[in-house]
């Protein structure tokens, strides 16, 4: 006889408890008074604290009215007398809203309301029974935190006003609700076991049975709470294990689904809420990142900043993360990461007298191998970043508390917490963190961050109330509420047995952010190079009596730092954020170009001899490159000097036949689309091509919800065809360059490729002029090389990293798209093929070569992403020896440092063979700072012409020397007193 499936219809115990919890929630306020004097003025924010109003006068705002507009800010006011019955005790403003509101009462900042909290205490700000409310509300279709399910239902640009009230909280009912929420969450958590669950539900049911729900009174509530104390909290039968450190934190994206200008208020609201929680809960501490956000608070809300400063000095409001913002940690170059710390720490030192000893980067999309050294030399001893543990799509990152060994061998204490950086402090989340913690044997506690975030918001009263009850639940891990710094300094000590991770912290996800929003990557590379030259030229121009424009340079540098934020530069943001970034980058670039000037002779700002082919703007030139007329010349410039350009070469130097293109370096056969079918190296007597080489490849690129972020591992399975419109033909040539052109079409997009061979260089330049109209397509260029290698060597901007080109293990397979900076190289001992780029960061290692990602076109968050005209170049550079012998790094630095004009004279050390990464005036104006970077993996000594100060990256003097001893990938900072 078969079993009959029984569909249970009666209410289960958890459901019955939940129903009664809902009834209790109707009694959390003992008295309610409707405020009827609200008015509203709708506006749209156009800049930081600048608003364009829709109406000249406010209009009345009544319950049921629609308020807020798309991309809107609402200014809501009310004035009223507090009813006598409210006097004498605590009362609050109740306002249910999807918006984010900053509440002022009688001129004082009382707190914040948002989808995560509906009341703010105002009684302490009311004087003589009269209250004047001034509310600035900012509405988002995407509220702060998608993880709060209750906030999802209220999405939308236009909201219905649900009324505003004065309410008196019923503390007893509220306390019981917290007990029930704590216990039902714990009872539903599988980690604690069935017996515990059954026990809690049974006793909680009995406790609630003591309440007459038809007539709820405080005596019943007291009895229920006493029962819970006696039967659940006092029962220590169920034992938990583990140690969890609870750090209050709110993640704040400076720009994402909102613009940078809006993060001023988002940050203010978040900080204000935490300060008010500190007023109420003396044990509450909170950790907040990003010097930039502190700067905006100081600028626009000085009185709140002063309050915050006092809490910092008390040790309760903790600045964490020494960086200026939480930048992307793949694409910015080494000097940019150093500046993030220089400007970040400079702010924290000047305002609070502290050097923050940690990097707090919970949301970044992987971390470059160059970081440990940069962090340690910038006063940072601890590194925190979450995503590798919770987002990897292939492998489980094996550590949470460990030592991270950097590319140069520098070691730093590292914490990759086991769970997400946004949590709401429920027992199940705390237990889940310990359960997932992989370094239990190390003797360290695990880190749990709690607080809503992405757009700020932070901790709620509920989270703190629950935390205060954790000690009563014996089944839970042992918890301790600490600051981020307290956790790191107490848990990461020499006595602890920590394992070491000696590699980059590669995130097996978000690989598309290396390519999305190609224009921003282009601007970023340019701005980084220009910042270097503007500083260098400005230092050298001081000899001519020109004042170093320190403030101007710092302003541009900081703007660059902001735009390297991890949802700006990676391209994971809405359309207006992109527009803001483009505007910022244009300002940065034109400002830095103005500082450099354009008078005088061309100069070589590099500290090694320039000898590669380069493009010089010239109205009489034969070529148009990236819309500029000019000519190609073989530069011959000594290090750090001016020189005259040679006259152009003349005479025949290449031959085109039906079969091949003959140049001094190559005998090449090209396909109609510009692919190279054969590239025979006459100098090295070898063929470089063994398949698709310089071949454009198009793929369907549909990763799903994280459209701008991800490229799927199987993208190659969905190729998209292209066709040749105009086959390859010779366009023009002179004594130095021969230019061939081919036009392809894919979908609605046209892709023109100009391929340039040179008389004096083995480099082959490919310019791509693209009218890109695709949606959800990935464009790559493929290089299948006649080279046997198992590694793709990639530039990190401060040394090289080798990525597996084979795919034996899941770890190797997961690295199908990796970050490269200016170049990547596929080589044997005696030679290989490098590709040098000017603005691309995504490379795909292949068993027989590699791909370079050129363009994407995701539709979320920005439906218009990457569409339009693109014009970019890369250089194919076959070479003898490995990439070091082939001097690929120097060629790439030359390629990314176009010749500019400025007459200067440099007399001093050139520091060869180190790379002069930066030359600037120190922030205090007392020294010239030289940043030197070893990038070939060598060690050695350099005798200096005189004594110089040795500095850390914060420009503190460490010592003095007349000789540099350097080791592989070391970054050295020296100072010369003025």
């Amino acid at each position, binding site marked *: 006889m078969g079993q009959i499936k029984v569909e249970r219809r009666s209410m289960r115990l958890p459901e019955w408890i939940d129903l009664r919890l809902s009834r209790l929630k109707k009694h959390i306020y003992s008295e309610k008074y409707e405020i009827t004097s609200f008015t509203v003025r709708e506006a749209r924010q156009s800049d930081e604290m600048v608003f364009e109003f829709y109406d000249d006068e406010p209009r009345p705002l009544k319950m049921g009215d629609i308020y807020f507009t798309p991309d809107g800010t609402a200014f809501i006011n009310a004035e009223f007398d507090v009813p006598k019955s409210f006097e004498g005790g605590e009362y609050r403003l109740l306002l249910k809203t999807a918006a984010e509101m900053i509440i002022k009462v009688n001129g004082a900042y009382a707190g914040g309301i948002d989808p995560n909290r509906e009341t703010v205490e105002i009684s302490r700000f009311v004087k003589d029974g009269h209250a004047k409310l001034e509310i600035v509300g900012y509405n988002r279709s995407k509220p702060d935190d998608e993880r709060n399910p209750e906030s999802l239902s209220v999405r939308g*640009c236009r909201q219905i006003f649900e009324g505003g009230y004065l309410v008196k909280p019923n503390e007893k009912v509220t306390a019981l609700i917290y007990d029930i929420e704590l216990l039902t969450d714990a009872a539903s958590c599988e980690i604690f076991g069935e017996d515990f669950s059954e026990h809690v539900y049974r006793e909680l049911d009995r406790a609630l049975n003591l309440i007459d729900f038809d007539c709820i009174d405080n005596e019943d509530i007291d009895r229920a709470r006493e029962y819970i104390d006696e039967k659940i909290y006092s029962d220590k039968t169920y034992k938990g294990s583990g140690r969890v450190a609870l750090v209050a934190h709110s993640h704040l994206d400076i720009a994402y689904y909102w613009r940078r200008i809006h993060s001023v208020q988002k940050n203010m609201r978040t900080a204000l809420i935490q300060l008010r929680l500190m007023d109420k809960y003396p044990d509450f501490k909170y950790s907040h990142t990003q010097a930039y956000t502190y700067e905006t608070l100081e600028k626009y809300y000085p009185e709140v900043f002063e309050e915050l400063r006092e809490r910092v000095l008390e040790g309760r409001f903790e600045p964490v993360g020494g960086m200026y913002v939480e930048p992307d940690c793949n694409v910015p170059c080494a000097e940019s990461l150093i500046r993030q710390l220089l400007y970040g720490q400079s702010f924290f030192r000047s305002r609070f007298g502290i050097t923050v000893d940690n990097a707090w980067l919970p949301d970044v999309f992987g971390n470059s191998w160059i970081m440990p050294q940069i962090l340690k030399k910038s006063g940072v001893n601890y590194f925190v970043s979450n995503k590798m543990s919770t987002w990897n799509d292939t492998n489980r990152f094996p550590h949470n508390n460990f030592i991270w060994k950097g590319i140069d061998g520098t070691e730093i204490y590292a914490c990759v917490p086991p769970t997400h950086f946004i949590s709401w402090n429920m027992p199940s989340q705390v237990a889940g963190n310990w359960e997932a913690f992989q370094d239990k044997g190390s003797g360290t506690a695990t880190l749990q961050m709690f607080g809503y975030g992405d757009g700020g918001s932070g901790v709620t009263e509920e989270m703190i109330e629950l935390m205060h009850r954790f000690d009563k639940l014996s089944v839970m891990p042992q918890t301790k509420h600490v600051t981020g710094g307290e956790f790191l300094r107490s848990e990461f000590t020499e006595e602890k047995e920590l394992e070491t991770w000696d590699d980059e912290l590669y995130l097996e996800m978000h690989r598309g952010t290396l390519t999305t929003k190609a224009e921003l990557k282009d601007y970023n590379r340019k701005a980084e190079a220009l910042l270097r030259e503007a500083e260098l030229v400005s230092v050298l121009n001081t000899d001519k009596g020109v004042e170093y424009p320190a403030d101007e340079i710092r302003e541009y540098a900081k703007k660059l730092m902001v735009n390297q934020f991890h949802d700006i530069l990676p391209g994971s943001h809405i359309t207006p954020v992109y527009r803001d970034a483009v505007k910022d980058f244009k300002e940065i670039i034109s400002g830095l170009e103005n500082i450099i000037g354009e008078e005088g002779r061309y100069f070589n700002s590099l500290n090694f001899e320039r000898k590669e082919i380069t493009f010089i703007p010239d109205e009489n030139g034969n070529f148009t490159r990236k819309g500029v007329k000019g000519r190609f010349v073989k530069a011959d410039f000594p290090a750090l000097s001016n020189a005259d350009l040679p006259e152009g070469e003349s005479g025949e130097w290449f031959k085109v036949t039906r079969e091949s293109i003959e140049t001094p370096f190559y005998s090449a056969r090209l396909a109609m689309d510009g692919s190279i079918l054969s590239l025979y190296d006459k100098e090295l007597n070898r063929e470089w091509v063994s398949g698709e080489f310089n071949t454009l490849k198009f793929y369907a690129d549909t990763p799903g919800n994280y459209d701008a972020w991800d490229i799927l591992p199987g993208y190659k399975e969905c190729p998209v065809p292209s066709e040749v419109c105009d086959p390859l033909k010779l366009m023009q040539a002179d004594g130095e360059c021969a230019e061939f052109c081919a036009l392809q079409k894919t979908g609605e997009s046209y892709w023109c490729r100009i391929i340039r061979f040179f008389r004096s260089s083995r480099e082959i330049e490919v310019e791509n002029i693209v009218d890109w109209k695709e949606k959800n397509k990935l464009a790559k260029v493929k290089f299948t090389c006649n080279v046997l290698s198992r590694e793709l060597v990639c530039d990190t901007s401060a040394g090289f990293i080798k990525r597996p080109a084979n795919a034996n293990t899941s770890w190797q397979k997961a690295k199908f798209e990796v970050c490269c900076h200016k170049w990547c190289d596929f080589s044997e001992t005696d030679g290989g093929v490098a590709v040098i780029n000017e603005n691309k960061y995504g490379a795909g290692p292949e068993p027989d070569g590699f791909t370079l990602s050129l363009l994407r076109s995701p539709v979320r968050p920005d439906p218009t992403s990457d569409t339009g005209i693109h014009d970019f170049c890369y250089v194919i550079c076959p070479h003898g020896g490995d990439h070091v012998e082939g001097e690929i790094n120097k060629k790439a630095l030359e390629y990314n440092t176009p010749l500019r004009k400025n007459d200067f004279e440099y007399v001093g050390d050139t520091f060869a063979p180190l790379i002069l990464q930066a030359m600037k005036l120190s922030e205090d104006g007392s020294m010239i700072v030289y940043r030197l970077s070893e990038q070939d993996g060598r060690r050695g000594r350099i005798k200096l012409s005189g004594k110089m100060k040795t500095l850390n990256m914060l420009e503190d003097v460490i010592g003095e020397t007349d000789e540099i001893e350097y080791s592989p990938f070391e970054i050295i900072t020296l100072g010369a007193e003025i």
Partner: protein
Amino acid sequence: MEKYINEYIRPRIQGDGGEIEFVKREGGAVKVIFRGECSKCQILDRCVGWIEQRILEDTGESVKLEYERKKPYFLDK
């Protein structure tokens, strides 16, 4: 109308992660497509009303907005 929607309405819609595209005008009807966050908004009608009101106040024209939602591929079930 196309210029007004592109230059005035569109930046505001984009500010919330949405997207509006002008399609055509037929007499008193203006056809548009909503994408991005707008494509899945449960209270889009309120926004449509606001756009019609803005058009009336700023251009003096009373129009009816006829719209189509185009969800991103991963939501288009």
